[in-house]
């Protein structure tokens, strides 16, 4: 036992890290055990994300099959569970094309840049009590900062591919990402305010009542914003298959495409995990000391299911409508939420600045009402009334034919 991890290290609370660090530290110098333990952690994280992505692709394909009156992959392995494995094997052995005229270094960098932020985001998510790899005290801020890297990666992909469809996809995607960042950040502010902390662990602990009840508006805005940032339906303009082939990753093939796909589906998993942590109470639940990870997985799965459900149901919005939804609908909603929460926290909190369970209950009741009213009001305000009125029938109408007309 030659090395001692400093108590102020962000990884101090992590059992696995300490275990590896101590084990390696017995035979190797301290700095090396520091590095090796870090590498082990990275290995675990990358695998968690990629495995999660694989499971989500499988789940998506099965569930879409379910929604669409078919079976979905069921031949390879139990319930088709080996399907992602087959996909992966195939993509790994496929030729890796780089288009002529592409900006090669940038083109090659994109898949890495897509996956890296996901891995980094996973690092701060508490899977159960005290299991986050790094219990950062600025967790929410860190997640927001890291997640914006994706937009740069997407733009790099579109730019370097030397393909007009890719460029279309990239331009659309960046526009969407930037405008949805604003309402998402604002909606998270409310959460941070109630929890009085930016650390994800403390936010979970503060959720005596899950925050999707306390702040339904914030949850709504967050889910909408995140499905836009993940390019999921109904905001999937960046890779609108029926319009612009495959969007920004049109030119990618083989391993690079596999990574981009993994990043996409992994993104769904990570975002669902974050949503479960911030709004559904993460690992908290009955017997959470032992079953915290199970609660966490169940809640994440529920949100993944929600995303897949959206995808199977909704058509896509047009790019200008997406922008309108962000700026005219979600932004006001998040502001309303912020104002309401600020007032409530200001009025309800006790002398030492804490909110009791009763306070949260009162907030929940008020906020549910606020949510319904706000969504109704703004939903009616932004409805597009122009260009939509019945026109006069023209003189070419034939007399004497029984017709039915659109209402």
């Amino acid at each position, binding site marked *: 036992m030659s090395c001692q991890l400093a108590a102020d290290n962000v990884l101090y609370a992590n059992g696995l890290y300490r275990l590896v660090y101590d084990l390696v530290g017995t035979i190797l110098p301290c700095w090396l055990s520091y590095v090796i333990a870090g590498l082990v952690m990275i290995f675990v994280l990358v695998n968690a994300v990629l495995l999660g992505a694989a499971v989500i692709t499988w789940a998506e394909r099965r569930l879409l099959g379910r929604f669409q009156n078919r079976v979905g992959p069921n031949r390879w392995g139990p319930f088709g569970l080996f399907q992602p494995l087959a996909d992966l094997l195939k993509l790994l052995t496929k030729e890796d094309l780089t288009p002529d005229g592409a900006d090669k270094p940038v083109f090659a960098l994109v898949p890495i840049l897509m996956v890296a932020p996901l891995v980094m985001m996973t690092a701060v998510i508490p899977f159960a009590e005290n299991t986050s790899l790094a219990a950062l005290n600025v967790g929410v801020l860190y997640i927001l900062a890291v997640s914006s890297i994706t937009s740069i990666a997407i733009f790099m992909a579109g730019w370097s591919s030397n393909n007009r469809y890719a460029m279309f996809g990239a331009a659309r995607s960046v526009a969407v990402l930037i405008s949805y960042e604003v309402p998402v950040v604002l909606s998270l502010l409310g959460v941070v305010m109630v929890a009085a902390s930016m650390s994800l662990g403390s936010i979970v602990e503060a959720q005596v009542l899950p925050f999707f009840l306390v702040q339904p508006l914030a949850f709504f805005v967050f889910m909408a914003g995140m499905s836009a940032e993940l390019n999921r339906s109904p905001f999937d303009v960046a890779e609108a298959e029926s319009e612009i082939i495959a969007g920004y990753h049109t030119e990618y093939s083989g391993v690079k495409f596999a990574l981009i796909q993994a990043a996409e589906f992994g993104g769904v998993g990570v975002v669902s995990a974050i949503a479960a942590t911030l709004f559904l109470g993460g690992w908290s639940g009955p017997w959470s000391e032992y079953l915290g990870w199970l609660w966490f997985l169940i809640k994440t799965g529920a949100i993944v299911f929600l995303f897949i459900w959206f995808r199977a149901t909704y058509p896509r919005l047009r790019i200008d409508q997406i922008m309108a939804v962000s700026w005219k609908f979600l932004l006001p909603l998040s502001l309303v939420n912020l104002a309401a929460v600020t007032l409530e926290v200001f009025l309800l909190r006790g002398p030492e600045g804490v909110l009791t369970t009763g306070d949260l209950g009162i907030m929940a009741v008020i906020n549910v009402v606020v949510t319904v009213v706000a969504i109704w009001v703004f939903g009616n305000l932004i409805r597009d009334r122009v260009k939509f009125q019945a026109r006069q029938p023209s003189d*070419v109408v034939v007399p004497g*034919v029984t017709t039915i007309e659109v209402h």
Partner: protein
Amino acid sequence: MAVREWAGQELSEALRRELPEAVEGFDETAAWVNPSQVGAAAIFLRDEPSLDFRFLNSITAIDYVEYFDVVYHLTSLKQQWCAVFKTRLYGRQDLSLPSVYQVWKGADYQEREIWDLMGVYFEGHPNMKRIMLWEGFEGHPLRKDFL
């Protein structure tokens, strides 16, 4: 309430009242129009309220080796009647007809198709490209002497 089909004689008389030089004759179903007068006849047929042929069903060309017939099928949606007029072009080279693109825009692709497959050129059509076949294809395949 079936659509009434005009006999050739009826249409030719209606045309003759306004455009005597355009009509060459008639047969059972159609009136024959002088090729150079097709444009004028088309405008008259569309705009005259008692005729009101605002809907162009189709344009067809038929190759009879010595000459080509071009057939126009018309309908009036309001009056519920149909009529046919034809025109005949002699020869095999450099055939051309006035385009009715400006009268019925529906003639656009059909005229291009006739140019592509039959080799009848339409004067005044803004875009006389080949429509079905590629540039550099030799000949006009629907002609009887093709292949």
